[in-house]
């Protein structure tokens, strides 16, 4: 993939939260590319740094405490060097985000129509009437029934599924090139979850967007992703195409997650678990962060953070036990 074609290019992205008491290294050197129209799923549990990474892709982390370093280009814009003014122009128009809990992510005292119009009017020089017309179009695009009436509805007057659709409508109002989704279906019922996931896939192909999903649910990754990146203690510990990851995971953590997720194991059989608990990001051990919990740990694991390695260049993991040549840093 040529440089000019990449939608997202991230190299050694690090995010630190600096407070008077401590410095927390939430994201510890993340590198990846995303092509237009590609779907990447970042899979991880709480404390892995996945939500922080996602917010960093729009520089949405709290201004005062956050230090973001590395290289980050989205849709041709350099997001590390950009000032807040430029960033606020980019947010909502080039990159958009949808959140986990639409009840709290939407302003409760403004109507849905108003919240959509507001985004359009911020980024595009159109009249209010035109913005209103487009808001109606968007509600129909996300398949909200009685769209015209819903323009004047408040968030608390809608069900969870409809609220999430409204949030998607807001996010897509300026035709962004990249959609970031932070666990958008975790709070929804199963039948609504699959509707929303399929809706996002359909809109992605209709609008030609790239999508980055953050989730803890392997099922969601299996349903929507082209590529999956597993995150642990601030790093990608495995990344590859979704099929290969599900069938033949390389990293012990990924294998542990697969074993711990309930999917057709015989009833009554004990699930394989990952012993221990996620590490304290403020005090990471030297070497592989997963070593304290790994069933296959060796002495060499405690020395250095393993580099990504694998037999295929598209499927790599940070584990010294993975066969293959350790990949040198991808050409900057």
């Amino acid at each position, binding site marked *: 993939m040529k440089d000019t074609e990449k939608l997202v290019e991230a190299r050694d992205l690090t995010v630190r939260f600096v407070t008077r008491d401590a410095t927390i290294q939430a994201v510890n050197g993340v590198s990846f590319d995303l092509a237009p129209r590609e779907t990447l799923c970042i899979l991880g549990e709480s404390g892995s740094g996945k939500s922080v990474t996602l917010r960093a892709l*729009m520089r*949405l982390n709290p201004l005062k405490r956050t230090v973001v370093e590395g290289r980050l280009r989205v849709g041709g814009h350099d997001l590390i060097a950009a000032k807040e003014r430029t960033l*606020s*122009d*980019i*947010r*909502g*128009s080039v990159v*958009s*985000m949808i*959140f986990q*809990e639409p009840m*709290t*992510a*939407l*302003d*409760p*005292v*403004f109507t849905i129509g108003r919240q959509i119009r*507001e*985004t359009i009017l*911020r*980024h595009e020089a159109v009249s209010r009437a035109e913005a209103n017309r487009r808001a109606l179009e968007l509600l129909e695009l996300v398949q909200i029934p009685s769209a015209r009436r819903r323009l004047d509805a*408040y968030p*608390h007057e809608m069900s969870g599924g409809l609220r999430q659709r409204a*949030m998607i409508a*807001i996010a897509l109002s300026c035709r962004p090139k990249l959609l970031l989704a932070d666990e958008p279906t975790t709070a929804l019922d199963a039948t609504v979850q699959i509707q929303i996931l399929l809706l996002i896939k359909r809109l992605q192909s209709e609008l030609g967007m790239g999508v980055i999903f953050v989730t803890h649910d392997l099922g969601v990754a299996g349903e929507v992703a082209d590529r999956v990146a597993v995150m642990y203690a601030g790093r990608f510990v495995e990344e590859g195409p979704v099929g290969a990851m599900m069938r033949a995971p390389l990293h012990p953590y990924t294998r542990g997650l697969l074993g711990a997720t309930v999917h057709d194991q015989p009833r009554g059989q004990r699930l394989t678990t990952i012993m221990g608990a996620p590490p304290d990001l403020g005090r990471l051990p030297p070497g592989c962060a997963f070593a304290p919990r790994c069933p296959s740990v060796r002495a060499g694991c405690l020395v250095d953070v393993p580099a990504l390695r694998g037999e295929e260049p598209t499927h790599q993991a940070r584990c010294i036990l993975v066969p293959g040549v350790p990949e040198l840093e991808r050409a900057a």
Partner: protein
Amino acid sequence: MMLYVVRRILYAVPIALSVGLVCFLLVHIAPGDPINAIVPPDAPQAVVEQVKHAYGLDRPLPVQFAIWLGHVLQGDLGRSLATGRPVWEDLRGAVANTLRLAVVASLLGFLAGVVLGGLSGVFRGRWIDRAATTIAVAGVSVPHYWLGMVLVITFSVTFNVLPAMGAGPDDVAGWSWDWAHIQHLVLPAVTLAVIPAGIITRAIRGVVSEILSQDFIGTLRGKGLRGRTIAYHVVINAAPQVLAVMGLQLGYLMGGSILVETVFSWPGTGFLLNSAIFQRDIPVLQGTILVLAIFFVLVNLAVDLMQTLLDPRISRA
């Protein structure tokens, strides 16, 4: 929505009646026989009986209440025992004066509260926050009659720039909004404004910082909205709670501050109440308390309805 308004108004009626009952009973709760306020202690029994009958004090309590209520609803609050004039005559002027003072003091207090509260809510934890909070706490803690006296000593006695008492020049009756009158308003209004300023600072600080910590602020940033627009969202979200606090503060101030009005000899309801208490002028006391309490009930009702109007989440059923 209309149904909701009607319901709230209907609920206010029993509250107003209860308030009236308490006002009526005040006389009988106070120590001593009310008859002693009217008749000298050495009056002959026949006169006492006559006065009792004239004032209806020999009827059973519920009957007395009904009679009193009947008069009140016709606008007759009785006659002052001290002056013999109808209570409403003196009360009318006093209420107007107190209202003027209360409204001006409220506006001053709200302005100060909004500025200080807004600053400390946005910059929570920083020095601005600490400074504003200290001022607010000082405002609420300082006894306002003491503050009033300090202001009088400073501005009236030492520097002689503002008058110390009264509501206007002695030779002019009534009120007008000219400097001759307004200069009398300044010190008492500032004194009274200090408490609502403190309370509103604290309220706004809490509400604003709570709103800023909510998820939807992140969404607003994520849409690329600028600081101005986000501030507007915060204001609209904060309005219902903040306006409710403001409304109640206005209600308190309308109740008149006996202490401040006495310090400044401001001829409002507080001043009236003060002299009525010392003179044991029961009808004036009853009438004044009743009017002030009804005012407060109405302010509460208005605040309730306003909150419902502003916050779409409150059910309008």
